[in-house]
């Protein structure tokens, strides 16, 4: 074992740093046409009339269609997660036919010989709307008099979960803290905009898409369009980030296939950023009411959670499941006697929400870690001490939580110890006390977040019990080639994570071959026929384990051949550094020699199939549970509302680490996104339901100048639920950092009587919050 654990530089980089990339928008096919969409300028309206005729007469235009032209064949965009008995899944035509329900919904399209001409001709389409009332506020939407987004009403579903006697926990509780938090709506903003290319020879179809989920997409597109699954190939070429936003079956993907079929020519559509901000699914958008009951000494008795979750106008691929991924996380790392969770999904006339980095778990962790700080203030304890009194101690694992998950391992003490040391916790607390004493206009806040998350999605049985439409396994194949090189096929489809490098490291160790001798293929259903793709920090903990298991099978086959060639019994062979040796003698065969022998097939054991390859499909028995302690120090200017992150320490326990460089990179990026939610980003709709943050000038993603350098470190408590001992790291930083930052801001302002600042905590919000508690006019 030398490769696993080493900071290998990535194999992926060579192409990416030289521009030899294969983004979907790069693809040019002979005769290819460009598609542009006309989108609804209204949040809610009936379509009275559409005439695409005039657009068809514009230069370069080959065709123009409205929703009506595809009404018979476009089907309904799928929702794969009917979460409850009462769930309402409205019809969701890729191009609206009768009614539009959010600004940006596609109503017509133009297909032309270049992208400029396609865009130009949109203006010639004649369309008439009859405006209907917008539905924007969730609480209002649920009232009897509210206008309806859909015939069936604005309630998408209700979902409840509970364990223990919650009434007893709250009855006579010495301390109850009851808070409501707003999880603002976010725009995932992967740097590569979405793009799709579809081509057909009349019978078979190929779809290139900037997607995280080529495999799921293929199945869902086959079901939606009626194109037989075996005639449809889906390719995810280089994909420029996803963060959940490319975990979707989109209107533009369905329509690309239909247009290619209708016109018999390849078509391409690439979104502009402004189009994307309106029409790539959004994230978060929940109203969270959380109450905790506790003893005077801070020990938790129970937690009650009530959510309103904004679905937007339709249920997309996993829209209603997102808040439920948090349902099992509102208890975090803490012990308590009772837990109660309820969620109502609400339709509004906004872009649908769906998975965004962390998906449900950041929301849960935010509310919990925020309320823990409120409780600490209430009972007069240091926030870390309160957490210590409640968390699961390391000797208590495996531990079945009040939410009925079994945490296999963890060491919250160790991570916290390490984090406080790196942070200089006591010193910063002393400085804080000093500034408070001096009534310094610039106050120091210290934010704590001791998080865990469930990842490695997911045990198929658990998904089944939650009514999800598919399993959570992952597939890999490993084949030794005649010359001893190795090809790996993975069902987990990367978009920046570094699968190729990490898988090469796993294979190099397992088969004793050089790192350079391994190549990894992915993201094309013709090459990688089975897979469940990439999301939910699952790639390594599920897909990586499948790779390891396939290697183990290959090795066992090779052992049979080695034994035959060495005239020994397989049990007498030991495998080290890529060679089988007969114990106690020097005689041996390298795995490369065996690969060649298998290829030649001249002298194999009786009945041995001449192929040194294997498939494996791993279905985890449990989730994995990364955890960690994040500490943030923020200076807040109480006169201007300006804040500045002074230091940020993240100590994460993601189990065994295959590549520390990749792990650190994932943490960095996750932190940036979590901090962005805390301080910068919000998708804003105006009172008419127009999205105001359509550009990168309005939707403020942090730049390098907005973020600090992060201090990161790790503790390593191996997961016991998989043979690699890994837990997953893709979302940890995002989950932990949002509450750490807001806790720090509130901590800075608590002496001023502030108990909450709504995210994003912009200088203006901070200033207004302070003005509010001071009783001044804001």
């Amino acid at each position, binding site marked *: 074992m030398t490769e696993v654990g080493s900071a290998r*530089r*990535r194999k*992926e*980089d*060579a*192409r*990416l*740093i*030289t*521009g*030899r*990339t294969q*983004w979907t*928008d*790069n693809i*040019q096919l002979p005769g290819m046409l460009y598609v542009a969409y006309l989108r609804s300028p209204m949040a809610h309206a009936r379509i009275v009339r559409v005439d695409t005729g005039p657009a068809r007469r514009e230069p370069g235009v080959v065709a123009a269609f409205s929703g009506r032209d595809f009404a018979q064949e476009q089907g309904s965009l799928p929702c794969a997660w009917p979460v409850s008995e009462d769930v309402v899944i409205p019809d969701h035509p890729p191009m609206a036919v009768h009614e539009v329900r959010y600004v940006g919904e596609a109503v017509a399209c133009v297909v032309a010989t*270049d*992208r*400029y001409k396609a865009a130009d001709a949109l203006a010639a389409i004649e369309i008439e709307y009859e405006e209907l009332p917008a539905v924007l506020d969730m609480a209002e939407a649920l009232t009897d008099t509210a206008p309806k987004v859909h015939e069936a009403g604005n309630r998408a579903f209700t979902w409840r979960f509970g364990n223990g006697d919650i009434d007893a926990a709250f009855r006579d509780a010495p301390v109850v803290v009851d808070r409501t938090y707003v999880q603002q709506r976010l725009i995932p*903003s*992967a*740097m*590569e*905009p979405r793009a799709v290319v579809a081509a057909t020879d009349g019978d078979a179809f190929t779809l290139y898409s900037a997607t995280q989920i080529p495999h799921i997409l293929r199945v869902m597109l086959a079901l939606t369009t009626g194109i037989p699954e075996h005639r449809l190939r889906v390719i995810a070429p*280089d*994909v*420029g*980030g996803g*963060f959940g936003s490319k975990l979707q079956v989109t209107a533009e993907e369905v329509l690309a296939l239909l247009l290619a079929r209708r016109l018999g020519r390849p078509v391409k559509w690439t979104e*502009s*950023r*402004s189009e994307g901000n309106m029409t790539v699914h959004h994230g978060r958008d929940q109203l969270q009411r959380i109450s905790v009951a506790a003893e005077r000494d801070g020990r938790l008795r129970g937690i009650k959670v009530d959510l309103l979750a904004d679905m937007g106008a339709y249920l997309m691929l996993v829209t209603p499941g997102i808040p439920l991924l948090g349902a099992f996380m509102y208890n975090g790392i803490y012990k308590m006697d009772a837990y109660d969770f309820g969620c109502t999904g609400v339709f509004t006339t906004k872009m649908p929400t769906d998975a965004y980095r962390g998906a449900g778990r950041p929301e849960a962790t935010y509310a919990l870690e925020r309320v823990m700080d409120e409780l600490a203030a209430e009972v007069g304890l240091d926030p870390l001490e309160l957490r210590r009194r409640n968390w699961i101690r390391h000797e208590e694992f495996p531990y079945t939580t009040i939410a009925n998950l079994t945490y296999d391992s963890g060491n919250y003490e160790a991570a916290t110890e390490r984090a406080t040391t790196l942070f200089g916790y006591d010193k910063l607390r002393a400085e804080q006390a000093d500034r408070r004493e001096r009534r310094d206009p610039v106050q120091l806040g210290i934010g704590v977040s001791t998080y865990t998350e469930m990842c490695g999605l997911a045990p198929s049985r658990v998904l089944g019990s939650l009514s999800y439409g598919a399993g959570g396994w992952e597939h890999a194949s490993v084949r030794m080639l005649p010359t001893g090189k190795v090809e790996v096929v993975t069902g987990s489809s990367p*978009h*920046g*994570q*570094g699968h190729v490098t990490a898988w090469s490291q796993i294979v190099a160790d397992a088969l004793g071959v050089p790192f350079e001798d391994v190549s990894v293929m992915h993201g094309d259903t013709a090459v990688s026929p089975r897979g469940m793709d990439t999301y939910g920090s699952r790639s390594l903990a599920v897909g990586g384990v499948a790779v390891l298991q396939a290697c183990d099978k290959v090795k066992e086959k090779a052992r049979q051949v080695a034994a035959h060639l060495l005239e020994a019994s397989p049990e007498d062979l030991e495998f080290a550094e890529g060679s089988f040796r007969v114990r106690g003698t020097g005689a041996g065969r390298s795995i490369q020699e065996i690969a060649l022998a298998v290829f030649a097939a001249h002298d194999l054991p009786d009945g041995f199939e001449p192929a040194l390859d294997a498939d494996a499909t791993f279905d985890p028995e449990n989730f994995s549970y990364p955890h960690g302690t994040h500490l943030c120090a923020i200076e807040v200017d109480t006169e201007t509302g300006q804040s500045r992150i002074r230091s940020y320490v993240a100590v994460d326990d993601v189990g065994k680490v295959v590549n520390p*460089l*990749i792990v*650190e*990179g*994932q943490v*960095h*990026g*996750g*932190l*940036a*996104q979590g901090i962005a939610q805390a301080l910068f980003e919000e998708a804003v709709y105006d009172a008419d339901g127009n999205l105001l943050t359509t*550009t*990168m*000038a309005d939707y403020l*993603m942090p*730049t*390098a*100048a907005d*973020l600090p*350098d*992060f201090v990161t470190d790790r503790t390593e408590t191996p997961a016991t639920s998989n043979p690699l001992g890994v837990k997953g790291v893709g979302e940890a*930083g995002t989950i932990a950092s949002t509450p750490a930052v807001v806790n720090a801001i509130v901590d800075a302002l608590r002496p001023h009587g502030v108990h909450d600042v709504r995210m994003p905590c912009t200088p203006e919000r901070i200033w207004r919050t302070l003005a509010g508690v001071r009783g001044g006019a804001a």
Partner: protein
Amino acid sequence: MPRITVTVDGVTYEEEVEPRLLLVHLLRDRLGRTGTPIGCDTTNCGACTVMLDGRSAKSCSVLAVQADGCDVLTIEGLAADGRLHPLQTAFHEEHALQCGYCTPGMIMAALDLLKEDPDPSEEAVREGLEGNLCRCTGYCNIVRAVRRGAQAMSGREVSAS
């Protein structure tokens, strides 16, 4: 249609272009230089950054006709004689990219930054790259890479910032 002459990564092209054609679309759609990507439509992201006559420019905010007679250097032309530019090596070594979509623009913007300030502090790199967005890396490793690249380019030690 106007006729322009433009040199891209050492190759001279003569093209007839619509006056409104953006340089980035000329590069990508007409000349097949797809190494330079597009990330936005409001000149905010910097993904499309190239060197135009030796200074960095967002190629989505330049018309092809404005590039008439100019020399354009893209990420694809940066490695000379098959040898990576020190900044490219530094991005690789410091793991300064994940999906890589922002990388061409980051590297070209950094190149320009280092012309002005061959030994930038951490602060200066962060300020200098303000026009380039990355959604994956959280910027830490990009900052490290730019300073490492600077060091390699000038053969100096990176001074503490």
